[in-house]
């Protein structure tokens, strides 16, 4: 089982950041690598089980299913159904936690998946850097730090 864990501090209250990332169909609004996204079967994007079908800037297509979401604990979990990446059983969680001694929050993005040992280090660093850290960097730019 390969694991990726990336975390950061974003300079805005958790509720404000959650407002920006909560929409399971909203990746193109905040993540620079995502070009467009739609929810299959016209389901609401906060319906557990819904599938987002999105394209990266490079044209790759990915389908992901929403597994869990909590407006109370501020997290969202999802699984990859189809992607060009050589991996299976991919489950990821994006979570925000308030930092009580300031107007900022702690953001964690983690994933577990299966892959061949030869691909593992490339996948871990690619997902960690391009997807997770890339997303946090975009949020940090948006919220000024």
């Amino acid at each position, binding site marked *: 089982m390969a694991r990726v*864990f*990336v*975390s*950061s*501090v974003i300079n805005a209250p958790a509720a404000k950041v959650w407002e920006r990332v909560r929409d399971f169909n909203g990746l193109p609004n905040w993540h620079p690598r995502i070009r467009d996204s739609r929810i299959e079967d016209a389901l609401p994007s906060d319906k557990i089980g819904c599938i987002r079908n999105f394209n990266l800037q490079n044209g790759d297509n990915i389908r992901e299913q929403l597994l869990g979401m909590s407006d109370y604990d501020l997290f969202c979990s999802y699984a990859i159904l189809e992607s060009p990446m050589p991996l299976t059983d991919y489950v990821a969680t994006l979570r925000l*936690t*308030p*930092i*009580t*001694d300031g107007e*900022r929050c*702690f953001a*964690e993005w983690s994933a577990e998946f299966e892959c061949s040992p030869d691909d593992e280090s490339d996948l871990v660093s690619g997902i960690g850097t391009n997807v997770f*850290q890339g997303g*946090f960097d975009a949020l940090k730019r948006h919220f000024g730090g």
Partner: protein
Amino acid sequence: MVKVVRSTILEEPVDAVWEVLRDFNGHDTWHPAIATSQIERGESSDRVGCVRRFKLNDGAELREQLLTLSDAETAYSYCLLDTPVPLFNYVSHVRLLPVTDGDHTFWQWESRFDTPRGREKELAELVGESIYGDGFTAIRNHFQERAVA
């Protein structure tokens, strides 16, 4: 039931912070409210179930029991057994998480407890500020002093 949550970011790697926090008997070395502390029955301070008996600076004596300790999760939890302060059913959780973007540490300290009626706010404030908040400041100073030394 009252719930208190406090959290902060320390500009130290998680391993360095954990090294200080994981010693259940070590709080008298860094927390300003604690005068002395010892583990009962000569047990090791990382043995789940061990009890720390400690004195505050004002002489009050408390006993707390270690409920969980995990090096993998960099977390522990404990409960109050005896205390002159009216905190009942007090269970507290401490956990550290790495901030990978910067090699810093996210530290969360939280608890749930009951109080006599009408004293919820006052005691939540006491726990949140005098124990957790002052503890954050003390650890921050602890690392600063170490850096200077």
